């Protein structure tokens, strides 16, 4: 295997600037949405005192989870010594940092008082998993940033294994923390489960790799650089394993709940009676997000097609967003169980399925998070040497023979 040669992309093409302009316009729209929401208050959103976390949280949590997953490729190369992945390790750290930045932007801009971010950064309640997450997010930037540096600067290369190992441990902690935001909510029927933490870790593997795969396929196609079957197959097979892994955790979670009578109500809501949430679960998360991608990835007719795998990756992303919607908003829509065995009613919508209609402003803020992430990646690969000139088979596969 030859030593990979990294090179900036040319980028002086109309298409490149068009891409930056498109992403930039989404970022501007998100900033505009933020000012619109902050100017008079959150009353312009679909959120209310029942559904307190809305569409921006769906995007934010999705991106944060995907961020740590995007680091997989680097981890596999540094921690597990799979040298074939080494050429993509720097890009993997870049995508991870960009996705986290995009997700955090959405999260912060949706706060009731984003101007008080400094308070959240300086005053910590250490019993709060949310406070721990802030430390985990900041630490992720630092550790993955150092890891990236050890890979980009030649005389630092010797430290990249240690840095990569630290980043791997940290990313597991980060996704465990994100899952625990929900797992630790004792009061709500849809959450309060230890499985949330490992499930979020596997979700991160899947969503992060799907986005990473799309970025690799697109950037190699658009820059006319060779992407051989060896790397392509490794990545898409890995995606298949992760998608199946998420499906396994989802099945385990629902089977456990279906066994316990106290959870029958919320299970019936998500799986059968929940309207939009039920549809998003079956059509979005299960069929589009899991079964179709698995079929595409493993069916001989589609398994080797770049465009088919791109569609599978897009479906994994859409299914992931659907899954987040079902978890975050579906979980809040189901009423709190205050008086088991009794019908409840009040002026504050007790005992009712809570309604939520996302507004355009919330959607634009969320999409802006994705745009920020992609913009950062597109810019960084032009100014720094992240992308190997070639991912052709002979460049990546030590056992490749013509």
């Amino acid at each position, binding site marked *: 295997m030859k030593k990979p040669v990294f090179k900036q992309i040319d980028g002086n093409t109309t298409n490149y600037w068009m891409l930056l302009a498109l992403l930039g316009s989404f970022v501007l729209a998100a900033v505009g949405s933020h000012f619109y929401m*902050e100017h*008079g*208050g*959150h*009353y312009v*959103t679909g*959120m*209310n*005192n*029942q559904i*307190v*976390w809305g569409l921006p949280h769906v995007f934010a949590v999705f991106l944060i989870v995907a961020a740590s997953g995007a680091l997989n490729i680097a981890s596999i190369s540094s921690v597990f010594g799979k040298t074939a992945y080494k050429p993509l390790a720097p890009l993997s750290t870049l995508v991870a940092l960009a996705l986290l930045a995009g997700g955090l932007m959405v999260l912060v801009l949706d*706060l*009731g*008082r*984003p101007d*008080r*971010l400094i*308070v*959240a950064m300086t*005053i*910590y*309640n250490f*019993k*709060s*998993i*949310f*406070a721990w997450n*802030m430390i985990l997010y900041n630490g992720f930037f630092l550790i993955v940033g150092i890891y990236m540096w050890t890979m980009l600067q030649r005389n630092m290369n010797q430290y990249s294994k240690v840095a990569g190992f630290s980043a791997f441990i940290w990313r597991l902690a980060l996704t465990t923390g994100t899952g625990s*935001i929900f797992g*630790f*909510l*004792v*009061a*709500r029927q849809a959450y309060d489960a230890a499985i949330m933490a490992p499930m979020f870790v596997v979700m991160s593997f899947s969503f992060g790799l799907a986005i990473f795969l799309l970025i690799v396929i697109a950037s190699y196609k658009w820059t006319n650089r060779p992407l051989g079957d060896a790397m392509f197959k490794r990545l898409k097979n890995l995606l298949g394993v992760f998608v199946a892994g998420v499906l396994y955790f989802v099945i385990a979670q629902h089977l456990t709940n279906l066994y316990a009578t106290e959870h029958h109500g919320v299970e019936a809501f998500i799986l059968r009676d929940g309207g939009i949430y039920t549809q998003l679960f079956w059509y979005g998360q299960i069929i589009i997000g899991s079964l179709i991608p698995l079929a595409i990835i493993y069916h001989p007719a589609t398994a080797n097609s770049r465009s088919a795998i791109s569609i599978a990756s897009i479906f994994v992303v859409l299914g992931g967003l659907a899954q987040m919607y079902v978890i975050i908003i579906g979980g*809040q829509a189901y009423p*709190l*169980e*205050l*008086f088991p*065995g*009794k*019908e*409840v*009613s*009040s*002026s*504050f*919508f*007790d005992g009712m399925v*809570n*309604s939520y209609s996302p507004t355009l402003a919330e959607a634009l803020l969320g999409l802006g998070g994705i745009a920020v992430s992609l913009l950062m990646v597109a810019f960084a690969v032009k100014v720094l040497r992240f992308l190997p000139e070639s991912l052709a088979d002979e460049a990546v596969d030590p056992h490749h023979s013509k």
Partner: protein
Amino acid sequence: MSNSDNHTNNYRRKFLAQSAAVAGLAITPGIVLNQVAHAKADADKATSANRWGILIDTNKCNKGCTDCVTACKTENGWGSVDGQPSSEIHSNKEQQAQWIRKVTITDKQTGHVQSLPLMCQHCETAPCVDVCPTGASMKREDGIVQVDKHICIGCRYCMMACPYKARSFIHEKLELQKATEPRGIGTVESCDMCSHRVDKDQNPACVDACNKAEHGAMIFGDLKDANSAISQELKKHGGEQIRADLGLNTGVRYQGL
């Protein structure tokens, strides 16, 4: 000493004096504000020697009566009273704050109907306090749970964590607020057991309203004082917690559930 030296010394003296005056002026407001911020006249009364609680007898609670809710609105400035517009004019009904509400519960098997007021239950181990990243959601020494609106960042995690849906987020700018209960856009709020009244040895507004209506369904008092009316009543007839399974040791208890 030459004239020019004298001149320089005078200049230096003047400069130092003026600098000191400017520095003094600059820090004085800070010192004064600091003293104001740390002045805790009434709040100093909050000590762990007390634990305030409310006992609600659902059998005495009148089904059609909402006097406790009206009293809370009037005292704390939320919602609309007597057809007057709410302070939250832009927010829809699902977005408007409710610190206390009357809940009607019907037993699915027997059809037995009960009515009771529901508000912050002032848990000893409050989930909202545990999850708050900045410590804005806090419990006073005397067991009253409230929000420090100066450091609330509006993340709403406390609302996700509260088993009783006792909290509200303010979705718009507010005017005409009560001096005793400042409220703010983008922050979370809830019943604080009328801490400003409790600090003056008064009952919470809801309890007084219930007594005034001669229903006597609510008893306020110190759960740590064995001789208080609430402790005596709890000892005699007991009292239940809503979602007792969560083990939160609530300060608000119910009879007749």
